[in-house]
């Protein structure tokens, strides 16, 4: 039981990652691909935040009378990573808008047929 409690968080996070990853590689629609990418990345963020948690600790903002804080370093890393994620999303979505204008569709198999290979 302890074993499960110790790893429950990680396992669910792995499941979420894989759900996102599956959407990315299986979706035919480009917007859905980007949604999947976001889910994938957000789940990775949860992995990081999970490892920073200290049971019985509190948020790493100094208050009187508290000595046990959670680890601030993963938080910093993930703040950066979230920004990276939204930057990628924005560029990806604008690519989709352009693709729609150029091809008239955002379904991968449809625009693949409209050009010769490569």
């Amino acid at each position, binding site marked *: 039981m302890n074993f499960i409690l110790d790893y429950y968080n990680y396992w669910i996070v792995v499941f979420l990652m894989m759900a996102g990853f599956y959407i990315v590689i299986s979706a035919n629609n480009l917007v859905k*691909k980007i949604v999947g990418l976001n889910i994938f990345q957000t789940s990775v963020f949860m992995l990081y935040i999970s490892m920073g948690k200290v049971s019985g600790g509190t948020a790493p903002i100094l208050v009187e009378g508290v000595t046990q804080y959670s680890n601030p370093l993963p938080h910093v890393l993930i703040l950066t990573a979230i920004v990276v994620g939204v930057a990628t999303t924005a560029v990806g979505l604008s690519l989709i808008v352009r693709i729609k204008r150029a091809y008239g569709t955002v379904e991968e198999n449809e625009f693949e047929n409209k050009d010769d290979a490569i």
Partner: protein
Amino acid sequence: MVEQHLSVLPILLPLLAAPIAIIIGRSYLSWMVATIASAGAFIFSWQLLLAALSEGVISYAVGGWPPPWGIELRVDAANAFVLLAVSSVSTLVLLYARDSIQKEIDQSQHALFYTAHLLCLAGLSGILLTGDAFNLFVFLEISSLATYTLVSLASDRRCLTAAFRYLVMGTIGATFILIGVGMLYMKTGTLNMLDLAERIHVYDSSRTINTGLAFIMVGVSIKLALFPLHAWLPPAYTHAPSAVTAFLASTATKVAVYVMIRFIFTIFGAEHVFHEMGMDIILMVLAIVAIFKCSYMATVQSNVKTVLAYSSVAQIGYMVLGISLVSVTGLMAGMIHIFNHALMKGALFMAVGAVFYRVGSVDIKAFNGLGRQMPLTMAAFTLAGLSIIGVPLTVGFISKWYLVTAALEQDQWVLAGLVLLGSLLAVVYIGRILEAAYFQKLPDNVDASKIKEVPLLMLIPMWILVLANIYFGIETSITTEAAGSAAEWLFQHTRLPEVAQ
């Protein structure tokens, strides 16, 4: 003053120039800014290489915080050597781009092009110089985002789908690296590479560390387009503007190869990765398959840029093959090839871009009869092509020579034979293009008077690279010394498998 900050300046210069270039907004001025910044970065990286060769390691604590608490920039012969290749090619490409992008990119987007180029350069330099695993991820993303932008700037609509595919694959790769770094951090509690290397050995048999290693290797393999994860590369290189392809082909994947070397040798230790995990076999097999499969693919394409793109994937196979031999000579061959391949692919793509500039197409048929119309461009193409094949007196020969030597050191005769066989395929795909250029006639419907040499500003950088191909092919001491000491340095600071010694 300058000497003290030498390690941060190659990153800082393009990083500062990028916002300035976009504020200026005018094509000509932002080109000046970009070129000056890139040239400055080149000069600093040259000094940095000299300093690294004499001093060994230069550590720079950003923010004044000592590592592992702060972020450290750590320069040794290996990354200074690659940085030199990156910044020199970047400067030459920027010189070349001035005229080249006139035909390929809309006037209003020139400033954006230079900004993105500078951002990409800054990102690549950051990847090379940083000594922090997470900081590497951040710079990786800067360079990737800039790259997606650069690829999508072309006027052909297919560049959009190529860029999108690149974006999805690249982001998956980066996220895999993020997962891997997270697992390392989880076990060791640090992100500094040196500190990681020291603390990681306690956990050699840990399943978490090994999974982290696997994820980092897969992520980096996507970024460096190792077979079978190379699907994004040919379309991206084919449809990007010529100047962009010339820059990316000679730098982006090379930097990823460097990242792989850094993770294997500095962080995990060659002993662990190769001996205990058996990664050398995997890498070797993938490298050989890449060399043959992609060289073959290159021989059947009709678009010359695609031919060269597949050739790039094959050439990456040679670099990875060098790494997988796990010997100083093998690693040195890989490092030399990083530098040399930058020289030859840069020149080749510049020549192809020049053809596009005049003819407006890069189909192999468009090359018909160009040997007479554009003699200088095609001569450059020929020489660089010979270099890819590995003809003596060119840099390509040097790379192959050391690679074969490394294989023979371990009595791997078959491997040496395969390397030479791969070169034969290169003869085929380069030969097809040369045949078209020199032995075919210019089609009748083309006005011969319009097809003439490209402007001088395009020819000069191209020929600088071509001459460098020959110069470094004859005067080998500089590259071999730098790459050799880089390889030796890496090997001294890693735990070795007993077999290779």
